[in-house]
């Protein structure tokens, strides 16, 4: 799919940036004519992926998170969230509903939510070098701007 527009943002894994990342993704996505529900779904998926970097990738230090947003012709948004943290040993297991290494503070529903709120979720991870989550979502209305 042809790329129409693209933005890349890097920020440290501070939890206050969860809200920033959601707002930034929503602002970029506003050039697509998305419904409020679709926008809410996108923000939720971004929140899950960024929180995972903050909580799991860098459990006891700050590290860099990059968020890359792309608009793909004709009406698809792609979000890529990447960390250079500890990585995931067994990605398939991590994606199972309720699986968590986070104890009572977490519910193990993050990947399940990303999967149900976007069309495709791709996870690439290597222990010790980091994780990249790439999500694509087709929006129902036509792209308004080019």
């Amino acid at each position, binding site marked *: 799919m042809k790329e129409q527009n693209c933005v890349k943002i890097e920020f440290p894994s501070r939890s206050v940036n969860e809200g920033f990342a959601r707002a930034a993704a929503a602002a970029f996505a506003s050039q697509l004519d998305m419904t409020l529900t679709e926008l809410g779904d996108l923000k*939720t998926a971004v929140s899950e992926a960024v929180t995972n970097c903050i*909580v799991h990738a860098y459990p006891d230090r700050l590290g860099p998170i990059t968020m890359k947003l792309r608009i793909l012709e004709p009406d698809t948004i792609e979000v890529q969230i990447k960390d250079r943290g500890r990585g995931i040993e067994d990605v398939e297991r991590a994606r199972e509903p309720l699986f968590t290494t986070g104890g009572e503070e977490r*519910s193990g529903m993050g990947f399940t939510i990303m999967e149900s709120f976007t069309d495709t979720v791709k996870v690439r991870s290597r222990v010790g070098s980091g994780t990249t989550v790439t999500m694509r979502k087709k929006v129902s209305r036509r792209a308004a701007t080019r």
Partner: protein
Amino acid sequence: MGSESVKVSTTQSGGRLTFHIAGELDHHGAGALMGRIEERIEALTPRDCVLDMRELTFMDSSGIAVIMRAYRRMNALGGRLFVENVQSQPLRVLDASGIDRMVNISTST
């Protein structure tokens, strides 16, 4: 982004303790919110606990963990938990999580 963080206030009548939760609930604010809810439940041992989400505009899976923890605390006391006035985005998250099989969820009163 401090203005976007989650806010909570409580009201009590009879054996019913209500937490009014407002703003955006994510991992950033969930720890403090969870602490506040547990502290009030321990102190007041209500019969019913309500999480009123009328003013909550956003919630991710961090909110599910908050609800589950409140549910377990109320269960341990032999009390009940209700999640009320859930708005559309939080409702989609709750639906995707299947938590409605355990906890009473309503969208408006």
